[in-house]
């Protein structure tokens, strides 16, 4: 036998247990409808898998856990799902939550299920998964999903497994009866849990008011190889509290805010061990539990094996309730349970007791008196808190201080309220303070979250504005740059004499045109004046003459300016070409229009024909003018040597070669992309033709180039060298020009000018020589 230690405080309320242990565990009648809440414990609710109208079998999974701390839920009997909606659940608030309502078909037909042959052969992970799938949750109080606790050996060293069989609260005998009648199931469950957690020893903590249960356990323990000790502890409330039992059996204290596993201990309720046994050996999920139905208002208090989801009323009827005697229906024990108003509330996995109390049994609490600071509550507190201080803090809404006095270590056992001579409902104050603090924390969390989101949004908006601004700036800068560049190219162009002629010619042209228009206007005005015999005839005539002379001057200037530069003539040439092209297009359009008109037999055909003729003439004229102009540049060049045509030739040839190359490439890529066979054949011929032409052009070019080089060689000049020299001379000239523009000293300037002249002369000479050969 292990040594028994003791914990601080505790009380000795009347047990009232014997009345419900006289009868063996009975079977609760199968109710017509069962209401199965989706959340029966702390953690996340399960997610329904069935719809209204579905047929379910007993033991069928009807809701699956969606988070880590959550348990699966199975159909407690066979039947039809008639509703998935909010129903009142066994909770102190009396509020409703989502439930699955099953209408029983009375057959109680099991789904196919079977236990594991030998759980020791299985991987631990798989075994725990099996237990999770069976929806096993702690059956002592909080209903913590068991599989989570079974994982504890992975990150904690578990030395001791404690089986909580104390069942310290008055009235409740469910665990007592379970151990008396099904000790082997309890032992089997312990073996499975010990297999998973691998503790060095197992302790069963049991109060000395259950001698029959102790005998039963001792009887089955003879067969086990495990190191299991039954520790009989003196009856004292609340020795069944997890921390209190640990203190009793090991003298260790679980630190505040930690779990027992942190000091190497795991606790499991006896009811849970039996459920684990049935899940592993028979494959039965947790769909029923033993509920103690007791109190003076029932004639036959006893324990009933009850399906989860059975309404309280069914249990009370089964134990012959005297409705007229019932004053208070309590779910759970008299110390920690809560009063319920509605007897349709269902049994859940953690419902261990139902007390139908008469008014004599549980009288209304006498009105609370003022606290007299007697300190009895401190003496009774099993958690070694200062109930009196906590009471004052809760009452004064000083929740922070209450928290600092370890309010959250309070197990709400009710020992302090039990001993309070002033009948102050202390536990209610603690519950109130706890829920206030929790709400505050939740609100604070929400506020922090909202602040974060608000700030993120604010930052985003600012960033967007800044980005917009930056984009606008960039655009403005780009525009300014483009403007500058434009101005620069214009100013760059003006100092170059050749380029300067172009705007000059343009300007001259515009001036001439303006002069002509003015002249025309003046003429018109004069004619009109002559017609009407106006007074200001002389004046107008003078103006007309003036305009005429101006126009003539402009024309002359234009005539002088236009051919003055080669560039100008080139420009003219281009213009002529464009004019010719425009004329041709107009002609074509006119022809089309004529055709259309003729087809439709319209009236304006003759007119169109006349236009066409004029257009034809115009086009011809333009073409001729262009041809003339095109031939011209050759003639006015200073040295019409015989080499000149060669130059034209070689340039043209070069161009032709590159055009051919491009065409060839295009044709080839088109060929690659083409899929139609006929098309391919056509293209192939085309490509071949192009290739031939390209080769021809290349050959011609080569020939011409060769001829040039040969000719140069004949005169004893290396063409390449000549080219380089010419380029260098040109560079020297530009350099000189630049330094000239920079020089400010007159002497320096004259010197540079001299150098520049010589460089120019050299460059001209070299260019001339080069032009002879190219």
């Amino acid at each position: 036998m292990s040594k028994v230690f003791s914990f601080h405080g505790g009380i000795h309320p009347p047990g009232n247990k014997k009345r419900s242990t006289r009868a063996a565990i009975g079977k609760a009648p199968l109710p017509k409808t069962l209401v199965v809440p989706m959340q029966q414990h702390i953690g996340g609710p399960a997610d329904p898998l069935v719809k209204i109208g579905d047929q379910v079998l007993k033991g069928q999974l009807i809701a699956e856990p969606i988070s880590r701390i959550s348990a699966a839920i199975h159909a407690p009997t066979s039947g039809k799902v008639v509703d998935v909606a909010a129903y009142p659940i066994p909770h102190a608030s009396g509020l409703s939550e989502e439930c699955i309502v099953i209408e029983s078909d009375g057959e109680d037909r099991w789904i196919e299920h079977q236990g594991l042959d030998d759980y020791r052969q299985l991987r631990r992970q798989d075994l725990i998964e099996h237990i999770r799938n069976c929806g096993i949750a702690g059956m002592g109080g909080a209903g913590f999903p068991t599989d989570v606790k079974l994982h504890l050996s992975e990150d904690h060293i578990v030395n001791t497994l404690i089986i909580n069989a104390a069942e310290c609260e008055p009235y409740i005998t469910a665990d007592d009866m379970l151990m008396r009648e099904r000790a082997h199931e309890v032992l089997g469950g312990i073996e499975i849990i010990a297999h998973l957690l691998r503790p060095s020893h197992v302790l069963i903590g049991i109060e000395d008011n259950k001698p029959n249960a102790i005998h039963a356990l001792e009887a089955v323990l003879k067969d086990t190889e495990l190191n299991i000790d039954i520790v009989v502890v003196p009856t004292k409330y609340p020795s069944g509290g997890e921390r209190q039992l640990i203190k009793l059996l090991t003298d260790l204290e679980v630190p505040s805010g930690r779990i027992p596993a942190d000091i190497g201990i795991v606790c499991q309720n006896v009811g849970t061990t039996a459920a684990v046994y049935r899940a592993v050996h028979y494959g039965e999920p947790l769909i029923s539990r033993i509920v103690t139905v007791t109190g003076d208002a029932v004639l036959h208090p006893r324990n009933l094996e009850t399906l989860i989801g059975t309404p309280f009323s069914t249990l009370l009827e089964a134990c012959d309730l005297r409705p007229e005697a019932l004053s208070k229906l309590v779910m759970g024990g008299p110390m920690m349970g809560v009063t319920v108003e509605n007897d349709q509330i269902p049994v859940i996995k953690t419902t261990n007791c139902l007390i139908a109390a008469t008014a004599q049994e549980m009288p209304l609490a006498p009105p609370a008196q003022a606290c007299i600071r007697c300190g009895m509550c401190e003496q009774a507190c099993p958690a070694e808190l200062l109930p009196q201080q906590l009471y004052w803090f809760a009452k004064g809404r000083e929740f922070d201080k209450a928290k600092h006095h370890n309010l959250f270590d309070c197990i709400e056992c009710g020992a302090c309220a039990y001993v309070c001579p002033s009948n102050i409902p202390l536990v209610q104050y603690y519950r109130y303070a706890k829920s206030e603090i929790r709400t505050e924390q939740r609100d604070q969390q929400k506020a922090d979250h909202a602040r974060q989101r608000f700030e993120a949004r604010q930052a985003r908006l600012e960033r967007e504005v800044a980005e917009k601004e930056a984009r606008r700036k960039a655009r403005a800068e780009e525009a300014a740059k483009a403007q500058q560049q434009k101005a620069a190219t214009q100013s760059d162009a003006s100092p170059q004499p050749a380029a300067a002629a172009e705007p000059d010619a343009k300007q001259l042209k515009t001036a001439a045109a303006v002069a002509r228009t003015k002249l025309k206007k003046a003429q018109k005005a004069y004619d009109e004046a002559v017609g009407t015999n106006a007074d200001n005839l002389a004046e107008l005539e003078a103006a007309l003459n003036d305009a005429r002379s101006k126009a003539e001057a402009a024309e002359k200037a234009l005539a002088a300016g236009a051919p003055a530069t080669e560039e100008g003539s080139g420009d003219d040439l281009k213009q002529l070409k464009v004019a010719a092209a425009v004329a041709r297009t107009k002609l074509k359009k006119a022809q089309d229009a004529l055709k259309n008109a003729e087809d439709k037999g319209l009236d304006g055909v003759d007119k169109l024909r006349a236009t066409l003729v004029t257009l034809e003439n115009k086009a011809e004229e333009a073409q001729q003018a262009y041809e003339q102009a095109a031939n011209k540049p050759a003639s006015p060049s200073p040295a019409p040597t015989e080499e000149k045509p060669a130059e034209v030739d070689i340039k043209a040839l070069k161009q032709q070669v590159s055009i051919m190359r491009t065409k060839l490439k295009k044709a080839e890529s088109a060929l690659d992309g083409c899929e139609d066979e006929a098309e391919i054949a056509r293209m192939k011929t085309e490509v071949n033709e192009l290739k031939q032409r390209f080769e021809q052009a290349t050959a011609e070019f080569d020939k011409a180039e060769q001829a040039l080089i040969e000719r140069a060689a004949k005169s004893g000049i290396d063409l390449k060298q000549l080219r380089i020299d010419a380029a260098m001379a040109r560079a020297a000239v530009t350099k000189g020009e630049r330094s000239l523009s920079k020089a400010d000293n007159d002497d320096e300037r004259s010197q540079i000018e001299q150098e520049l002249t010589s460089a120019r002369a050299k460059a001209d000479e070299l260019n001339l020589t080069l032009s002879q050969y190219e």
Partner: protein
Amino acid sequence: MSTVLTAVIVLFLLAAIFGIVLGYASVRFKVEGNPIVDQIDAILPQTQCGQCGYPGCRPYAEAIAGGDAINKCPPGGQTTIDALADLLDVEAVPLDAEHGEEKPRSVAYIREDECIGCTKCIQACPVDAILGAAKQMHTVIISECTGCDLCVEPCPVDCIDMIPIETTPNTWKWPEPPSPMQLIATDRGRGVAASEAP
């Protein structure tokens, strides 16, 4: 004479040394911004509703730090006012009715078949809790909604409702027990009646 002089010199030197140390510390450990603003901001409920007349909770926190009244926050209600009074050591005053009244917490709900997808509510939401795109139906992410009301006004088809948050068993609070302190011996009978009433 020399003793007096020594004492004066020593005191002067000490003053100079401490002056330098304090001067350095004031530069080196300079606190950016007003720390009280953060503390006030932490107390405000962060609904960002603007009912106080400021564009968000932080601007109001800054205003309070600058001397504005502490009773302009309807979502926070008396709890916030008490906390602010406690923090700033001023007297707790009742909520200024001009800025609205304390209402139960609620969340926005968009009647989705009436939504025309104008995105106006999305632009109004201070915490980006509304999901949607132009000409697409919008919806409120309930877990992110602060219940600030700001999306209701811009909606051109009035399809946004503010629905009070329902209490679930998870958010349910134990009620405060009736105070025993109002009882005196002669009140016993009334006390019983009072405790029986609920």
